[in-house]
Structure formats: structure tokens, C-alpha cells
């Protein structure tokens, strides 16, 4: 069960963040930022070797139970990006995206 979902932009600010409101949100936000460190670590480790794009996908940093969830999230994220009216870097304001995220947060796993 996802308690917090965040989409972070390249510049390390959140494009979208949402958490189950019952918990202390701040804690979640911190966690999100620390996870960014993990990501950064991985990025630096990969280096320049093969094609860039493949490397961008660092794999699931976490066991694969949430695999489906991530995929769903990613799909909705790409849908948002496809929208020509959406400027990358803007906070994400898509109802469909919201809907999917809420769905993911509410459902168990």
C-alpha cells in the first residue's frame, strides 16, 4: 500500500507529491528526498558506458512487489507528458493522473 507517491523532476523538485494524509507528511517528504540520493548514487555509478537511455532506467530500487504499481504510475506519467499543453517542469495537474494515483494509494499493494 503506497502511502506516498511523488514524482520528482530532474531538478530535484517535486512535480507531484501526494501522501495518505493521516501520517506526518513531512516525514514522507524527507524520505522522498533521501531516496533521491539513492537514485543519484546509481546514476553516478553507471557512468557513461552504454547507451544513455537504457541506463536511465535504474530498475526497481525495491523488490518487485510494487512492480505493477510503478509501471502504472509510469504509464500515467508518460500520458501526462504526452500532453502538448503540459510544460515539462510544471507541477502536474492532471485529473486523470490524480485519479490513478489515488487509486494506487488506496488499494492495498
Amino acid at each position, binding site marked *: 500500500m503506497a502511502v506516498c507517491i511523488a514524482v520528482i523532476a*530532474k531538478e530535484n523538485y517535486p512535480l507531484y507529491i501526494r501522501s495518505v494524509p493521516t501520517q506526518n507528511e513531512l516525514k514522507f517528504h524527507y524520505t522522498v528526498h533521501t531516496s533521491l540520493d539513492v537514485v543519484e548514487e546509481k546514476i553516478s555509478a553507471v557512468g557513461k558506458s552504454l547507451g*544513455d*537511455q*537504457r541506463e*536511465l*532506467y535504474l*530498475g526497481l530500487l525495491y523488490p*518487485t512487489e510494487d*512492480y*505493477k504499481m510503478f*509501471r*502504472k504510475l*509510469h*504509464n500515467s506519467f*508518460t*500520458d501526462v*507528458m*504526452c*500532453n*502538448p*499543453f*503540459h510544460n*515539462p517542469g510544471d507541477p502536474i*495537474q*492532471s*485529473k*486523470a493522473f490524480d485519479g490513478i494515483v489515488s487509486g494506487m494509494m488506496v488499494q492495498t499493494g
Partner: protein
Amino acid sequence: MESLTLTDIEQKYYSDLFVYCDTDNTKKVASNGRVLDLFRAAQLPSEVVLQITELCGATRLGHFGRSQFYIALKLIAIAQSGLPLRVESLNSVKDLPLPRFVVGKNEAEARHAALYQDTDSQGLYPASATAVIPRPPGRGLQNKKGPPSSTPEPTSPVVSPHQSPPTSPHSWRKHKRQHSGGNADRQPVVAATGAVWTQFREPQAGPVPGEGMWPSHSPPPPGQESWVSFTADTPPSSALPAMHPSSVQESTTIRTVASAATTNEIQRQSSGYDDPWKITDEQRQYYINQFKTIQPDLTGFIPGSAAKEFFTKSKLPILELSHIWELSDFDKDGALTLDEFCAAFHLVVARKNGYDLPEKLPESLMPKLIDLDDSAEVSESTADVGYSGSPVEVTPNKSPSMPSLNQAWPEMNQSNEQWETFSERSSSSQTLTQFDSNIAPADPDTAIVHPVPIRMTPSKIHMQEMELKRTGSGETTSAFPLSQSGTSPEALKVVAPPPPPPRPHPSHSRSSSLDMNRTFAATSAPGQPQPSTIAFPPAVPPRPLPTQAEVAPGGGAVLTTTSPQQIPQQPNFADFSQFQAFAASEQPSSLPEAEKSSEGAGPLRTVKSDGQADERSSATVNSAKGSSGPLAPPPKPVRRRLKSEDELRPEDEQHGPQKSNVIAAVLATQPSIPRSVGKDKKAIQASIRRNKETNTVLARLNSELQQQLKDLLEERISLEVQLEQLRPFSHL
């Protein structure tokens, strides 16, 4: 009250209206409520209405008698045509058009109901279209076609109520003319008009200006109530003459379908009228033209950037445009097809006119799901999407916004995967599944891949097996450790598919190849002393004679006797002979065993699971055979691959398949056999057990690997999808 002379048409019309208002069925007095509603529907300013009621004398009387009602109606007509309200004008005005009323849906339904009851035999019913005119909230729709609208008609079109006598074509045509001008703009109206024409007799099928549909309707079977056809046909035909044949078709289909479905039709009509999202033909035409300015090919796409520019011109806030895009880009491909573009445009227009954007794409705006090869086909059937409950059309219901529509239309489940038609898919699992099926067969290599056996036990087991095995399966086993080394949690970088794990134990295969191997191997050793026996595929051991089996006490001895003879003959049987002994030790059970063996003799296939029972039985068989005398064919080597081959092989090589000679020798060796039998038996049993375990482990491993393979394939596919999507954004 002066006398009122009405034309026939008017007479009929008014009487119908009166009937309509005559809710109490008094035939004398029209109920005030209804009357007032009607007058309100006349869309006259309220003071005019007041004046009218005064003039007709209703205020005096306090109610609307028939004559008052008629007078009032006439006055309404006068007022609507712009003439001053005067009592004298009641009779003086010639050629007064029938009063027009815009009414809500419910009334329409009621009217229809009334219609059916009263007026079945009537001629043309030009218009309960009155009733049917949908009231889009805020009537924004009426105004919304700013740019494309040539003559935005603020009032809803004239529709004369209920019936009109057969001579009505004039008035009817007049009405048609009136609203044909603004026809395209008022999509609901058009729909209304279309829907309302209940029966359409041939006489009226005559030329109607601007309404191509009527000719297409011309031969409706008389007496058939099929407004439905009109509803469906109106939009397509009016704008695109090319569609006449299809609309005719459609109408015929619908007619055949709808004869009894009165309520259904009403429902559909009403629901159709309620739908503010329908695109009229003129609108659609306009959209198509706009589409052409961006993309001349009507079957092509408008890229997102171009669409963005275009819609930004509409000066809607970006957020709303973004939302509109989300709604209208049905297949989420970042480009707009003609349908999607029309939907988007329609939404923009609606928004500009004050409509709120829906949460989900309305039914009528959903893009057609069939091939968009034919633009005419596209526009036509898309129009149909909006209207048709026709069974011909099948669309997925993305939004249950029109429940009545849903009932009438065949619904397509979202779960219906129409890959080629871009049915709604959540661009995730379903898509990927599709990819899966597309990709997997294309790349057979991947199917064989055993990328990442993470656990180590398999290899261990394999190692064990390899130890056990001494045949030349080494080449395959060597491959397996390689695959192991390829293990990495991120098997995303698909390693070159290692060769499939070695087949465990060729010796374990069911085929007789094993035995052939051995027999052939054995053959090579002794040369070809008895090629006949070797080349001979293992024959089925002869069924033990029942008589033999019955010899219980002697059976043991017999068994024992024969067992040694088996040993040299068939290495396999050597082992069985141990089971023989085992069986022999269980004297009492020998009989049942013998029987069993008789059954099992024929299909002496080694099924591992049968294990020892089989062996026993086969051993018994063998023994029985042995006892029956010189065995003609060599007993079937029982395909007992359970035996550790190394155990067997030495025996094999030692003894060689010199069966006939052996038989004689067997007896001589009899005394020594039992002892070795015991040891061997245990060893064999142990090895059997081990092999069984191995087998189960391997089976489990196999299934797990399969599962992993599936998962990895899925992952890979998802990654590829992401790659695709990320690629254009790599600069981010």
C-alpha cells in the same frame, strides 16, 4: 370573444394541443398548468403571454376553455410572427404560421405517448419535435458555434407539435426551411427534428430543401413507427449526401429493429436530445475543414505541437486545454486523429460557451474505433456514434454519462481488447500484454532463455546428476554452470540466452533411446556376436502365464531361479531381479504381483512414480517369463532408467546381452545371486529415491524459471515501452 376561424391545419394542431393540455380529460377545459407551460414554451415575453391570456378571455373565465385555448394559440402565433396582438387580427391574418413551442423532454414523451394513442392513423406528424428539443444547460450549445455558425438562431427551431394532416407538407417544409438555416448550429434541434418525425409517408418524402435525409427516408413502410430512423439519419444525411445509401441502410436496419420498441425509441430520442455533446453535421464539417488546414490528409494525425498552437488560439487557459487534450486524445499517442480533433474542438467550443468540461469523454465524442481509412465513413459513423442505438454500431462506453444510451446501445466492454481499434486501454498492462504476444513469438530465442536462475540448488542438483551420469551428457551440463554465472538481479541487460539446461539424464528419458544407448553401447563391446538380439527393440515381455503365477510356493524358487538368468540378459533386469528377490521375500504377495505383472507386462513403461511396484511387477514378469522357459525375445529392458546407469553399465558391459547363452548360465550362478541382490537392491532403491527427488526439484525449478522468464519478459517489454516514450524526452 369573436369567432375564430381556423384552417384545417390549425384546427388539428390546436386540438392536439388542447388535448395535450387537457390533462383532466375534460375535453372542455385545458388545465392551467399545462397551458401555462405551453405558453412559456412559446418563448414569448411574459407580458405578452399575459396579454394573450387576457385577450382570449381566460382570465375572465379563470380557465382555458377550448375556444379560449384556441384563441390563445392563435394569438401566440401572431405574436411569434411579430404582429401586434389584437383581437381583430385573429381572423384577419392569413397564412399565419402555426405557433411554435419549445418544450422540455418530459412533455415530449408524454406527447408521444398521447400521440400513439390518438394519432396512429394520422398522417404526417411533423413535429413533436417541439417536445424533443433538448435543453442544453445554459443553452450554450445554441450559441456555441461562434465561428462556424452562419446564422445562429437564438430560438429553437419551429416545430409544429404533434400531428399535421397530410397537407402539412407546406407548413412542414416551411418549418424545415426555417430551421434548416440554423440547422447545423443547433445540433440538438436537428436531432430533435429528426427524431420527431414519427411517421413519414411517401407524399412527404418530397423534396425538402436542405434536408437530404428525406429522400432517403422516402419509402418507409407505412404505419411503422420509426422515429428512430429519422433520428439516426438526420445528422448524417443532411451534411453528407454521400452517406445517403448508408443512412438508408441504417434506417432500414433500424426500422426492422424498432417496430415494437416504442419506449426504447422514446428513450433514445430523449436521451439523444439530452446529449449536449453531439456534433452536428455543420459543426463536424467545420471541424473537418479546420483539420484540413493543419493536416490535409484526413486520415492522418495532427501532431501535438500543432494542435497545441491551434487550440491555444482559442484563448482558453492552458490548464483547461490540457484537460481537453487528456479527454480527447483517446489513444494517448500525442497526436490527434480526425475524430479526436473533432472531439477536442467540440470541447473547446463547448467550454467557450460556458459548458463545463466533463470528467470523462462523452459518448458521442468518442472516436470511432473502426478503421479510419475512409473519411466519409469516419464522419458518418462518428455521427452515428452519437445517435445510433443502431445495433450496427458498437462503441466502448468510456463514460457512463448517458445511461439511457447505454441501455439502448450494445456496450462493448472495456475489457474487449481491440488492439487495432484503439479501444480504451489503460496503456499499461493491456498494452503490455499485447506487446507480449507480439514480441514473444517474434523472438523465439527469448523463449528459450533461462536468464537468471538465482538459486543455487538447481546447479547442485545438476551437479549431482552429472556425477551420476557418465554418458556423454557432459556437453550440456557444462552449459548450465554458465547460465548460473549470468545471474544478476538486473537481468535487464538480456544476457545471451544460455543454452537450455542439460536434459537431465538422458537415462531418465522415457524413450527407449536410453536402452538403445545402452544396448548399443553394450553392443560395441562384445562386437556383434548377436546382433539380432541387440538390434531388436526391446520387446514387450511376454505376458506371464497365469499358470506360472499360480505356482506360489514354487514361485519363489522360480522367481529366484529366473532372476539370475535375467541379470546377465538385461542389465536392467539385473536390478529388477533384486526386486525380484524382494518380491520373492514377500511370498504371499507374489500372487497378486503376478497378476499385476500380467497386466503391466504389456505396457512396461517406466513411470517413475510407479516406482517399485512396477519394478516388482516387471520383475515378477521377468521371472515368470524366465520360468516359462527360454525366452524367445529378450525381455523388454523395462525402460527402467531409474537405475543408476553406472551401476547398470558395468553389469551391462560385463554381461552383455547374450541372452540365450545366459539362460543356461543363470542357473549355475544361482546361489551367488541372492547376496549381491540384497546390496544392489538397496543401492538401487537409494538411487531411485535420489533420482526421484532430483526430478521433483527439477520440475519445481523448471516452473520457477518459467515464472521468472515471464516476469522478465514483462519487465523487458515495459522497459522498452518506457524507452520509446522517454526517447523524445531524452534532452530533459
